[in-house]
């Protein structure tokens, strides 16, 4: 009896190891935009391709693009799980609750949700320290502006965007005490038409350097037309505005996707809330324009080096909000949990967060 069950057990074990050796790990990706958005979803898809390149036949990836963040998301995620995917990345905030529901339904599938805050036994979260790139953008914009006015095209007033506006302003202020920031909310992540309107509205108000939290190259193109400057978002957008483009802060998801896939293959995966930045090679400065003055270029390199080495963290106190409250005490650096809840503008931003 014992022997028999042992044999059966060994057989099963041999069976599973054989399956593991033969079958590739199936990995699914859910994108909110089209892979051709040249921004957020495009970079996730580049990450997927990087993953395929790294693992070759050992993985098989599938993606679904343009998935609406409503009732459809849960179906798409479920269908990816039903189709035999072992590991599923859902890459937009609006997929959070659908991913939570799917993770409950498929306990043997591993899920990772980008930019959310809910974890469970088989669901982890990951996000970027985009504020690091914003701080460098702010420093650069603060040096480049001639009108002392920089513009920010916001997508939605969520903590990530509020945090990044603060990082830009703090960066700019560190090199230019007279800096003013103007903010326009596009209420979209990707809409070239609206983004162009927002860019023009900002430039009409004296803004001469644009920073955007939306994904299309439209604001850069608008800046190029007026002979002003802009910073690219999420992917290398230099080719859309050869003169205007200062640099792009590129998201690079491949290192993370590779790392987590290894963990799933080795059985060491654990649900975590992971934040990746310059130190993790998940953020990079792409195509720094050779037409920048040498002092600006030197400052960019120096700031990036300080952030990459971990020597400098933008949200280190003392920081006051624009109502005069001390929000980060002296000597304290915001933790990831605190960073996720930033809902104030730093002192000096003469604007209100839309409620």
């Amino acid at each position: 009896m014992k022997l028999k069950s042992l044999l059966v057990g060994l057989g099963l074990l041999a069976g599973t190891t054989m399956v593991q050796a033969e079958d590739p790990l199936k990995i699914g990706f859910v994108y909110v935009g089209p892979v051709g958005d040249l921004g957020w979803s495009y970079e996730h898809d580049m990450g997927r391709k990087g993953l395929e390149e790294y693992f070759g036949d050992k993985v098989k990836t599938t993606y679904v693009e343009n998935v609406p963040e409503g009732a459809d998301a849960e179906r798409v995620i479920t269908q990816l799980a039903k189709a035999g995917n072992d590991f599923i990345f859902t890459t937009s905030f609006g997929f959070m609750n659908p991913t939570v529901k799917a993770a409950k339904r498929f306990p043997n599938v591993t899920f990772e949700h980008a930019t959310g805050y809910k974890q469970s036994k088989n669901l982890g979260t990951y996000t970027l320290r985009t504020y690091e790139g914003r701080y460098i953008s702010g420093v650069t914009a603060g040096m480049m502006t001639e009108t002392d006015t920089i513009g920010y095209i916001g997508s939605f007033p969520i903590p990530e965007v509020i945090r990044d506006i603060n990082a830009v302003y703090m960066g700019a202020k560190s090199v230019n005490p007279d800096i003013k920031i103007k903010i326009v909310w596009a209420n979209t992540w990707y809409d070239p038409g609206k983004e162009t309107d927002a860019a023009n509205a900002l430039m009409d108000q004296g803004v001469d350097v644009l920073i955007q939290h939306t994904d299309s190259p439209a604001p850069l193109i608008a800046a190029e037309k007026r002979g002003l400057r802009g910073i690219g978002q999420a992917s290398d957008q230099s080719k859309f505005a050869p003169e205007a483009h200062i640099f792009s802060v590129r998201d690079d998801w491949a290192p993370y996707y590779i790392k987590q896939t290894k963990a799933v293959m080795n059985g060491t995966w654990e649900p975590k809330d992971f934040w990746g930045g310059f130190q993790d090679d998940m953020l990079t400065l792409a195509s720094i324009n050779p037409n920048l003055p040498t002092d600006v270029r030197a400052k960019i390199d120096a700031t990036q080096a300080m952030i990459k080495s971990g020597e400098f963290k933008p949200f280190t106190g003392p920081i006051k909000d624009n109502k005069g409250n001390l929000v980060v005490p002296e000597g304290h650096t915001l933790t990831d949990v605190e960073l996720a809840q930033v809902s104030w503008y730093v002192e000096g931003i003469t604007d209100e967060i839309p409620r």
Partner: protein
Amino acid sequence: MIRIQARTEPSALMKFVSPLLAIVLTLIFGGILFSAIGKSPVQALQVLLIAPLADSYNIGEMFVKMGPLLLCAVGLSLCYRANMWNIGAEGQLLAGALGGSAMALYFVESESIFALPITLLAGVVSGMVWAAIPTFLKLRFNSNLILTTIMFNYIALYLLIWAVHGPLRDPQGYGFPESAMFSDATLLPTIFESSRTHIGILFALLAGVVGWFILTKTHLGFQIRVFGADEPAARYAGFHGKKLSWFVMLFAGALAGLAGIGETAGPIGQLVPNVSPGYGYSAIIVAYLGRLHPIGAIIAAAFMAVLYMGGDLAQIEMGIPVAVVSMFQGVLLFFLLACDFFINNRLSFTNQATN
């Protein structure tokens, strides 16, 4: 020389043949399209049109997708029959989602059995109010209903976005634009175990039958049909155009509002910025595919639901890009509507060239 001639009587034969002709044309086009991108046309068509009905989960999801389309399309069918060009089902749906969700959030701690009916009623009334304003503007000031209803779609969308960023935002949601999850007392009960199919589909089917009954079995429906076919004749017969206009618009608004709250209190379970992936606009196609007949709308809504789901499955199963899927869907709908042209028109071939 080929000429288009209006038929004196709609062709009974073409009424039947037209959809078949459209399907044959689509299959030919699909064959060419999928071969051109190196995918098996047979497998592609199977995944696009048959796989969505292949198992119980998928059939359940088809009902989830079909419900809101059908609710909106039944209302629109009656509107269009009465020459009320209501393009505002999307806005009425969003208004219903917003009003109903506000009520659901009021009941977020409640376990009362009245919570759900009151929530649904709030959605219905909100949809009706949203339909009433453009109707009033048209009847009182003779404004263009097409334009005002489109404008009201945008207003509803921005109201909803404002609400999820402000008063209805989840206080524990880290500032993300989503409401709290609704209490079970305000969620639509599901019909089958481990499926998202909820009783909203029963409301939708009931609406189809009621719409059919009104249109074909009642004096009111007779008036609507006469009014749409020949307005002067209807007035001569003493029918009250205003009353009919009010009726069809409020009916459509109520159903669209129900569709909206059915989404947030159904598969989504909370108010999110992306309640609808354009159901109100797709419902216009559904209404015409169903030849402005409420029972036809049931078939058309099921068909559209299959088509949408097939699009996701084609990406998951075969890696067909969403752009190709959308092109195929667009061509299919074009053929279906274009072939209906031959019900009331015919081609006549003459030897004479007319100059």
